[in-house]
């Protein structure tokens, strides 16, 4: 197993290098540079040119790339043009919000997906399974942003049960109980929107996995030796079918990232996805570059995590 993990880690390295090159090229295609954030009518053209020379912006690309990577590793992405503050500080405030939103979504995904998948697989082709399968069929065809708009309209505006924007009610003391509750209240609706659509894959996978496992010999054996039905399901089938789901956790990260862009935008939630769209619209490219790099890193690390969990859970894939 260690051999597999080490090999998988080695594959990750070039992926990160290519990603950084890709983002670097993307960044150089964008108009403006690290100094755009400091342009000011009081600074003369010459002073800017001098600063440009000093910062090495006239160097060949590979030296610029090296400097950029060194900076990025140390957390230096330049300054935001719009906020006149270091990109790192700006992003840091938003990462935490996105982290909470993702966490709530993931919890909902598993809390909804596991029971639905298990019920659907256990009672396959009965009425309850047909209802659940119908739901996954619809959910698979529904784009997340439409669903999020509708939930916001119905539960946020029409019924007024949930706040329609922001991450916390204004004027509350950070750390107090009310503050935390208000945060949760703001997270529930966007989190549920992501989860109700994101859950579809999990349910479909779990259902077919359980139906497959049901017909395996070891289940027949468990039944033959007289194990009660609940034990057959909870111990034998569930364990075998649910472990791969745990491994998909890393891949969910990619889904959460693109989901967060839409949902944060719709709920005007101050997270990274929203920051990304705002920055693009206002041509704040140093922030955009940093965010694309971070999102890419998160996706690569997610895939790595998934593969490692999968190799622990399922010995068969270690062979290749």
């Amino acid at each position, binding site marked *: 197993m260690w051999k597999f993990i080490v090999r998988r880690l080695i594959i990750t390295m070039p992926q990160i290098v290519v990603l950084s090159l890709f983002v670097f090229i993307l960044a150089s295609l964008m108009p403006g540079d690290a100094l755009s954030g400091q342009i000011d009518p009081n600074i003369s053209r010459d002073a800017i040119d001098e600063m440009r020379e000093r910062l090495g912006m006239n160097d060949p690309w590979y030296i610029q790339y090296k400097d950029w990577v060194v900076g990025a590793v140390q957390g230096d992405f330049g300054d935001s043009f719009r906020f006149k503050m270091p990109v790192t500080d700006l992003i840091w405030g938003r990462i935490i919000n996105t982290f909470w939103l993702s966490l709530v979504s993931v919890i909902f995904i598993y809390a909804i997906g596991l029971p639905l998948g298990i019920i659907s697989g256990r009672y396959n082709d009965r009425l309850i399974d047909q209802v659940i399968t119908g739901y996954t069929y619809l959910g698979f065809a529904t784009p997340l942003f439409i669903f999020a708009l509708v939930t916001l309209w119905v539960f946020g505006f029409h019924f007024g049960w949930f706040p329609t924007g922001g991450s916390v009610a204004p004027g509350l003391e950070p750390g107090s109980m009310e503050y935390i509750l208000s945060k949760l209240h703001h997270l529930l609706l966007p989190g549920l929107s992501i989860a109700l659509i994101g859950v579809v894959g999990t349910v479909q996978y779990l259902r077919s996995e359980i139906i497959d496992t049901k017909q395996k010999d070891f289940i027949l054996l468990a039944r033959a030796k007289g194990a009660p039905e609940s034990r057959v399901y909870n111990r034998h089938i569930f364990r075998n079918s649910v472990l791969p789901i745990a491994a998909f956790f890393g891949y969910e990260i990619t889904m959460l990232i693109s989901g967060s862009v839409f949902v944060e935008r719709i709920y005007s939630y101050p997270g990274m996805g929203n920051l990304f769209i705002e920055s*693009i619209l206002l041509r704040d490219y140093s922030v955009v570059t940093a965010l694309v790099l971070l999102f890419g890193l998160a996706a690569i690390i997610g895939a790595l995590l998934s593969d490692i969990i999968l190799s622990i859970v399922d010995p068969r894939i270690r062979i290749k």
Partner: protein
Amino acid sequence: MSNKNNAQEVEETVDFDKFDKSPSGFKIFWKELLKDKLALFSLIFLVLITAFVFGISWILDQDEIVTVDLFAIYEPPSSEFWLGTDYGGRDIFGQLIIGTRNSLLIGILVTVMSGFIGIVFGVVAGYFGGHIDNVMMRIVDFFMVLPNLMIIIVFVAIVPKYSVWSFSLVMTAFLWMGIARLIRSRALQEKELDYVQASRTLGSSHTKIIFTQVLPNITSLIVVTMTLNLAANIGLESGLSFLGFGFPEDTPSLGTLLGYATNPQTLEFRWWIWVPAAVLILILMLAVRNVGEALKRAADARQRRA
């Protein structure tokens, strides 16, 4: 019924001339459709709506619809404006028709282009195998792991002289990997089959085998995947247009209409602007998917209902 009975019956009743040729793919699909009323209905709906939006938008003038009319801002539905107007006094119903046409067009365009790249890439990698396959699949792996939605948005934002063409090219550049992977795994199996060996022994070139022998044999997989991709691409395009990174402003798509709902006032009080577009996208995606699922079953003899 026992086997013995079965055999007797076959001898008595079957006219062997019928078995000269196995039924064509189209016939199988048609039979499957007749069994699956939902898919049949979806197909009819798709044909009708395509004919309708293309027919109407031939008569309707896009420039006239997207022209601002300040005297008719945010009109609710009436006999003059069937579905009301938007913030520029533009008729929603007209925009809905043009939007559907544009969404369908770009969906098809992107599906065909990304499908073409993916198929060629996948079939070459799978057919040759070995090192070539290894290198090509690492490229696919890399593209798969990128946060594609963000990168498409960045490209859309920085491309100079932005047009419908550059939009579809950008989308294509990041959407060909899934189909490449699928086709490759199928081509890997296919090349082990005897007919490829036989053809090779007879002296056919690799190009000929790939494009005239292997590809036709995986057509069913290609058709099914492309149909399902079409639904996904329509969804993605409307999502991008919704965020404001899709079609240029003067070319409305279904997503553009939904994008107006980011204004809370519109979302809450002016449902006529965005609800029809949302419903239409949902129905379109479901219909394309229903047809795709029927195709999928027709392509796999074990799943057929007919």
